[in-house]
């Protein structure tokens, strides 16, 4: 089976100014990321703010273009943004954001908004659109009497359902979800996550699920990539990664998740600040916060290497030594 979407060596550089008259500094938000997503697979991307995970998600859709590297969708290079080919392709790949209120138009009813992609991409004859919208609403768990409601009349969970219904309207092959449930209460979050899993399994949609919430990612993703300062530092199946994280950063992330009934004492609390992409440390970007950093980590950038079947890490200590890599 060939991958649905494949990214090769993606790089995104922003120019950031310090102060009003400061000299622009290039910031590498995404710094050489390669990944693949198979049809029907869910790839989780985790990392702190500033790790470049949202930028990466936008680059996969071609909304942010890459300065280096390329994205292949169904084996073909992504057409340039705003061309007719790109727009046609966008029907097959949709984006879901964290804040549904910002993603919805306050002046349109949700049924109209859910039907919009059908109109934009001219997907269904007019007379069939209403019934398809009704099906979509039922699929995401919205009641038919909510069709004529405006976004502000719905709860946060219902709004996110409406956004997801709209994303599904064009029957996409790929859904990129950027923190889709982070703003919801746990009780409602569980409803939406279950719904997304069901829809995905039913329609075999591939998903890139971007989140800082490891617990949610654990329960929705097949495979997980951990990002730190624009690079993937560890990648493995969700089952393996959370059970036995190898990269010290992944270990710290897993350890920082509060578990009800367990005290903080004895857990690894990562010291130091979240990374600032404008001020990238030399060598391994994680070394200033790393408990096991050695001399080599301060000078040489570790490459993402295969450490065992279906598992890769970018760390001199756990994946650097040839002896270990071969074992």
């Amino acid at each position, binding site marked *: 089976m060939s991958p649905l979407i494949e990214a090769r060596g993606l790089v995104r550089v922003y120019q950031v100014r310090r102060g009003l008259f400061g000299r622009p500094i290039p910031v590498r938000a995404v710094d050489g990321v390669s990944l693949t997503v198979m049809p029907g697979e869910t790839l989780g991307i985790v990392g702190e703010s500033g790790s470049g995970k949202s930028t990466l998600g936008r680059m996969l859709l071609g909304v942010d273009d890459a300065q280096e590297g390329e994205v292949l969708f169904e084996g073909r290079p992504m057409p340039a943004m705003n061309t007719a080919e790109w727009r046609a392709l966008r029907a097959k790949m949709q984006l879901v954001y964290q804040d549904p209120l910002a993603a919805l138009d306050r002046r349109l009813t949700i049924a109209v908004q859910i039907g919009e992609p059908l109109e934009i991409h001219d997907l269904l004859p007019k007379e069939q659109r209403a019934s398809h919208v009704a099906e979509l609403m039922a699929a995401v768990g919205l009641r038919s009497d909510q069709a004529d409601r405006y976004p502000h009349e719905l709860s946060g969970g219902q709004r996110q359902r409406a956004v997801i219904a709209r994303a599904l309207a064009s029957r996409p092959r790929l859904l990129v979800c950027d923190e889709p449930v982070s703003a919801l209460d746990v009780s409602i979050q569980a409803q939406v996550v279950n719904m997304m899993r069901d829809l995905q399994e039913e329609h075999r949609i591939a998903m890139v699920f971007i989140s800082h919430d490891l617990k949610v990612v654990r329960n929705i993703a097949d495979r997980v990539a951990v990002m730190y300062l624009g690079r993937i530092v560890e990648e493995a199946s*969700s089952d393996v990664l959370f059970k036995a994280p190898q990269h010290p950063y992944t270990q710290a992330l897993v350890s920082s998740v509060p578990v009800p009934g367990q*005290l903080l004492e004895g857990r690894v609390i990562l010291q130091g600040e*979240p990374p600032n992409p404008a001020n990238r440390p030399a060598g391994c970007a994680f070394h200033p916060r790393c408990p096991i950093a050695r001399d080599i980590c301060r000078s040489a950038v570790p490459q993402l290497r295969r450490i065992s079947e279906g598992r890769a890490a970018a760390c001199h200590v756990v994946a650097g030594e040839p002896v270990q890599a071969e074992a």
Partner: protein
Amino acid sequence: MDKNSAAGSRLVELRDLRVAFDGVQVLHGINLDVAKGEALGLVGESGCGKSVTWLAALGLLPGKAMVSGSVKLDGQELAGGPRSVLESVRGGRIAMIFQDPSSSLNPVLRIGRQIVEALAVHRSLRGEAARAEALRLLDMVGIPDARRRFDLYPHEFSGGQCQRLMIAMALAGEPDLLVADEPTTALDATIQAQILDLLIRLRKETGMATVFISHDLGAVSQVCERVCVMYAGRIVEEGSVADLFAAPRHPYTRGLFDAIPRLDGGRERLIPIPGTVPNPKHLPKGCSFSPRCPRAEDGCREARPPLLALDNGRKLACFNPVPPVAKTAVRIVEEALA
């Protein structure tokens, strides 16, 4: 100070605290005590009245809110009292920090000056003394290199550091109680762990009581000794963290626990609580939770269960509570069926 000798006695007493907005009642008679030096957690979904309880107690709600009931600090009545009484308490004896620190800091003032200002208001410190104390507070909350960063603006700090700055300002008045309203919700997991760690350490060092408002039961269990679970403007369950987490009795509390995705274990379906928090304008008849409750019986839809005391300080408002069994029973059954 007599802080230690009086440990265990009541610092804050809320009695029958009620709040209504435009005639719609959102808080239905809250009774709550905070002991000196205690760490109390307040949990529940958004819209259950966790924040409103403390905003009302401190007189921070907008004028259209109708507040009734009694709020006592060391036996002194605050509710309905003159403005001057509340103003001496707020930020002084009781400090509050919020979810979004950057919106509580003045963006055009240097952070050193903001903390010095708080010290001037609450402790009448001026000049060098104020500056020295501000630096001590910044050190205490873990701002690295505080001396050099004293004259920076809030935007030059990260989100986690802004929360530390807020905590430093809250400490400026040497409060007896710190009310922390979702202080870590907007932060990354690693930074969240640092801030929780800081709150625990500060409470140990200063002996101040903490009220920790959060929807994250995991975070609450790390910071708090006692928990109140709120639903639709009422307390529905109360108890020590150890008891309540070992065996939640209210089906709502139980639902909150079950809904937390787990990091250990397989890639599982999550267990949601069906439905949503009711609109305060149209509260269901009987128990407010009954429409979402898997254990609701006919009686639950008719009458509202009162909050009754059980043993060892636990309280519960439920006609048909979860039997006191091992907390993972539902999971075990599900795994067996899967």
